[in-house]
């Protein structure tokens, strides 16, 4: 939908029909995070309500999505009770994973524009309220802990949430791949369209650094912040050279937990904590950046986090902020791979 520039038509459609809308990570920022009908992310690390209620809805309208296995989990238990409308430009994706009762092959913008007059103005606030129950539980069990914990270590979620506040939800955020990517999707509250750049289903580590440079070249007037993990950063860190050479003020945040976090999480949850080749002995990122001619500093003290982000955002040159995070943090909710979307775990 973002590629098809259909955000406006989508917003009109959602507001007229009153149907709650959820997004996949590549659909993030198409609808403002704070929009009343935005019920969050679906998928493996999506929101509790959005995932569970997929298996309770009467009608599922899928726009520009391919029903990737991260979204559906076990296909034999995915939305079997719902009628499915699939608006999709690629005919080979229709009926590939999920049988569509009403396939609409075509451009999202044109399709939504044509559908808008045909849809009745409706209010589904009771259905919308069902999501609230799950949202509240998710907040209690997960969000509160991620954002307002008591310990000394910085958690990834609070760093992202603070970034979101300071950039007023208007920055272009580029993520790499892993836990930080999921955390950023959860806690950065997007206000503007076309603000989330990520490799999506490709899952390519090392994507963020060069991509953030590309994004800054494309929209130099917008703040571009790359959020990268310590693993992915090391895969393309030579691009610091390209950034330094251009002088474009790309802002880089490394959420350093000294681990290949996502893999470690799986090893903890599904393989009895048998950590294998996931702990990283990292170099001194700030010295490396300085070697390329890029300013930066490291923060590990929670009390200095806010000030550090200010330094990062106020710089008019490229800047690298290394945030040392809690080593063994897990991202929840999580739908176990190949599991049913309703068996989403909260811890």
């Amino acid at each position, binding site marked *: 939908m973002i590629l098809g520039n259909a955000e406006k038509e989508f917003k009109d459609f959602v507001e007229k029909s009153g149907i709650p809308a959820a997004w996949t990570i590549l659909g993030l920022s198409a609808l403002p995070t704070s929009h009343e009908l935005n019920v969050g992310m679906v998928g493996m690390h999506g929101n509790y309500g959005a995932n569970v209620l997929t298996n309770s809805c009467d009608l599922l309208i899928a726009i520009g999505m391919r029903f990737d296995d991260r979204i559906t989990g076990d296909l034999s238990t995915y939305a079997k009770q719902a009628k499915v409308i699939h608006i999709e430009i*690629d*005919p*080979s994706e229709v009926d*590939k994973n999920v049988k569509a009762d009403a396939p609409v092959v075509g451009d999202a913008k044109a399709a939504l524009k044509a559908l808008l007059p045909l849809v009745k103005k409706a209010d589904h606030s009771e259905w919308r309220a069902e999501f609230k129950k799950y949202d509240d539980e998710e907040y209690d069990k997960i969000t509160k802990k991620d954002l307002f914990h008591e310990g000394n270590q910085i958690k990834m979620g609070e760093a992202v949430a603070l970034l979101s506040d300071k950039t007023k939800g208007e920055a272009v955020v580029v993520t790499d791949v892993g836990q930080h990517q999921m955390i950023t999707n959860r806690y950065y509250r997007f206000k503007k369209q076309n603000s989330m750049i990520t490799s999506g289903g490709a899952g390519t580590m090392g994507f963020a650094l060069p991509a953030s440079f590309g994004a800054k070249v494309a929209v130099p007037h917008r703040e571009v912040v790359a959020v990268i993990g310590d693993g992915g950063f090391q895969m393309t860190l030579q691009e610091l050279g390209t950034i330094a050479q251009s002088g474009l003020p790309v802002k880089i945040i490394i959420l350093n937990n000294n681990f290949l976090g996502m893999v470690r999480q799986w090893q903890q949850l599904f393989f009895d904590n048998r950590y294998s080749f996931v702990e990283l002995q990292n170099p001194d990122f700030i010295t490396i950046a300085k070697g390329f001619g890029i300013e930066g500093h490291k923060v590990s003290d929670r009390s200095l986090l806010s000030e550090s982000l200010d330094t990062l955002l106020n710089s008019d040159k490229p800047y690298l902020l290394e945030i040392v995070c809690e080593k063994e943090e897990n991202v929840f909710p999580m739908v176990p791979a190949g599991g049913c979307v309703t068996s989403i775990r909260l811890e």
Partner: protein
Amino acid sequence: MLINYTISVFTTNTVGLLNRITIIFTRRRINIECLTVSETERKGVSRFTIVIRSQSREFVEKLVRQIRKITDVLAVFGYLDDEIVFNEIALFKISTPLGCEPLDVKTINLDWNAKVVHWGLEYVVVEKNGTEEEIHEFYSYMKNWEILEYVKSGRVAVGKTEKGLVEFLPEEGNWEIV
């Protein structure tokens, strides 16, 4: 139960296209039983005829849709054996040294509808065309002699409909008869 599916792919005559098509099969770990490529009656249009064996029609339908997405592919069709007219050709090089059991050329010609196409000094080459089954039966008969070499072509097939190829090609092209 594995059944034959014949996939006809119409393409422009581009170098390297075979790789792009066969990788769709490789990715799904499907064995290509046989493959034929040649030009068609339309200028610049080539045709691939690929035979696979599969248990699931749905699987083959998805495969066909993925092939359709490739640039330079103009049209793709999947067929079951009863939806096409098809044939294959095979050559048998048989050893005929002095003093061996002679080949019964009359049986080969009349009963099996095959023919001897080459006589060497100590070998003979026999050609048979027919369906895979017919060739297989003939092979069992020829095993009575020493088979030095055996080669079978891929399948050539046309659909059992009154439509011509040009009706399925994109309208914008110049599809003149060669």
